[in-house]
C-alpha cells in the first residue's frame, strides 16, 4: 500500500464530489413532493451506502486476515471500519437533520433504514473498546477479525429485520424515493455516490499511509536505539495503541 496515485485519487474524488453537488444545486429538478429538503438525499444516502459497504469490506478483510495471517489485512480491516464509522457519524447527523426538516423531529423510530443504521453504528462503535481490551497484539488482531466478520454478516440481517418490524401504515418512507426516481435524479445520485466512494477510498489510503509511515518511523527509531544512537529522552509511546501498526515485516 504505497502513496503512489494518492494525489490523483484525491483530486479525482474532489472533482467528482464537486461535480455531483454542483449538479444537485444547479441542475437536478426539485422534487415535487419534498421540495428543497430532498437535496439532503444526495448527501445522506451516498454516505450511508458507502459506510455500510465499508463495514462489510472490513469483514472481508477480517476474513482474509484469518486466512492468510497477513497483518496488512488486519490493518485494512481496522481502517475500513474506522473510516466507515466516521462516515456513519455523518450519515446519522445528516439523517437527523433531514428528519427534522421532514417530520419536525430530529429522531424518528418510524424510519427503518435510519434505525437499522443506528444499530449497526452502535455495534461498530464497540469495535474500539473491544480491541483495546485485548492486550496481546496477535490475539487482538485475530479477535478483531472475528468481530469484523460477525458484524459484517450482521449488517444485512439487521436491515431486513428492522424493515420487517415497520408498521405498514407509515405514509412515506425516505427509501422509497429511490424507486421511480426520474433519470436526472438517478444520474445525479449516482455521481454523488461515486464521489463518496472515491472519498472513502482516498481517506482509507491516507490513513493506511499514515500507519505505514509511523510504523516505519518506530522501526527506524528502535534500530537506531539498538545501535546506541538517540538521546536519553524516552520515546513517545505512552500507553497502549489500539490500532494496528504497519511495520515492514
Amino acid at each position, binding site marked *: 500500500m504505497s502513496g503512489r496515485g494518492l494525489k490523483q485519487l484525491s483530486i479525482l474524488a474532489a472533482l467528482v464530489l464537486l461535480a455531483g453537488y454542483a449538479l444537485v444545486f444547479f441542475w437536478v429538478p426539485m422534487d415535487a413532493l419534498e421540495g428543497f429538503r430532498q437535496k439532503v438525499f444526495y448527501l445522506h444516502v451516498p454516505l450511508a451506502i458507502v459506510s455500510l459497504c465499508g463495514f462489510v469490506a472490513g469483514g472481508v478483510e477480517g476474513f482474509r486476515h*484469518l486466512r492468510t495471517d497477513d497483518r496488512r489485512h488486519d490493518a485494512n480491516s481496522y481502517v475500513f471500519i474506522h473510516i466507515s464509522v466516521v462516515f456513519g457519524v455523518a450519515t446519522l447527523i445528516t439523517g437527523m437533520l433531514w428528519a427534522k426538516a421532514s417530520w419536525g423531529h430530529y429522531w424518528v423510530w418510524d424510519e427503518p433504514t435510519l434505525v437499522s443504521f443506528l*444499530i*449497526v453504528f*452502535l*455495534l461498530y462503535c*464497540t469495535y474500539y*473498546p*473491544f480491541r483495546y*481490551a*485485548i*492486550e496481546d497484539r496477535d*490475539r487482538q488482531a*485475530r*479477535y478483531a*477479525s*472475528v*468481530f469484523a*466478520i*460477525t*458484524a459484517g*454478516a*450482521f449488517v444485512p*440481517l*439487521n436491515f*431486513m*429485520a*428492522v424493515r*420487517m*418490524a415497520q408498521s405498514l401504515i407509515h405514509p412515506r418512507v425516505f427509501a422509497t424515493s429511490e424507486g421511480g426516481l426520474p433519470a436526472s435524479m438517478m444520474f445525479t445520485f449516482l455521481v454523488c455516490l461515486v464521489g463518496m466512494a472515491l472519498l472513502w477510498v482516498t481517506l482509507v489510503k491516507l490513513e493506511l499511509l499514515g500507519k505505514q509511515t509511523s510504523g516505519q518511523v518506530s522501526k527506524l527509531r528502535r534500530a537506531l536505539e539498538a545501535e546506541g544512537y538517540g538521546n536519553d529522552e524516552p520515546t513517545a509511546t505512552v500507553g497502549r495503541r489500539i490500532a494496528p501498526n504497519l511495520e515492514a515485516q
Partner: protein
Amino acid sequence: MKTTRMTPFGLALGAIVLKDLRTELRTMRSLPAMVLFAVTTFVIFRFGLDRTALSGSLASGVIWTTLLFAAVLGINRIFLPEREEGGFDAFRLAPVDRPVLFVAKATVLFLYLAVLEVIVVPVFALFFLQEWSGLAPLIVVLLATNLGFAALGTLISSMAVNSRARDLLVPLLLLPLVVPLMIAATGATSHLLDAGGPSYDKFGTWLLVLGLYDGIFCLVGYAVFEFLLED
C-alpha cells in the same frame, strides 16, 4: 476407513456438555442467579410500568427484555470454568476438533435458557397474563430464539473471556447484535399474547427471520471459533 486418532465429534461433545451440566448441578453458579434476577425484574416492571396486567406488545417487551438480561448473566459465565481452571489449555491439548467446544458450550447455554424459561415464563404468566392460551405456541418462539442466543452468546463470550473488561464487553458486544433476534422474537410474541387470545399475524415470517438469524450465527460461530481458541 477412518484412521483418525481424533475423538469423534459426538463423543467429545457429549463429554463436555455433561461435564458442564454436572458442574452446574453441583455448584449452581449460573441458573439460580438467572432465575432470581428474572423474577425480581418482573416485580420491578410491575412497579415501573405501574401495571398489574400485561398483554400484546407490552407483555412481549417485558418478557423478552427480562429474558435477554437474564441470558446475559448466563452468557457472562459460560466460559468461567475454562478460564479459571485452565480448561482452555486442556482443550487445546485434547485430540478433538476445535469447534466441538463451541457446539458444546452453545448446547449448554441453550439448556440453561430452556430451564430458565421453564421456570420464568409460568411465573410471568402468573404475574401478568390474563390469557394463557398463547403460551403453547410461545414455546416455538422460545426455542428458536434460544438457539440464536446460544450461538451468539457463546461466540461473544469466547471473544470476551480473555480480555480485561470481560463483564463489560459481553453486554456491550451482545446487545446490538441481538437486536434482530429481539425484533423477531417480540414481533412473534406480541400477537401471541394479545388480550383476546393468540393471533398468528406474520408469525411465519418472524419464525423465518429467527431461523435465518440462528442459521447465520451458528455457521459464523462454528467457522471462526478455532481462531479464537488459538493461543
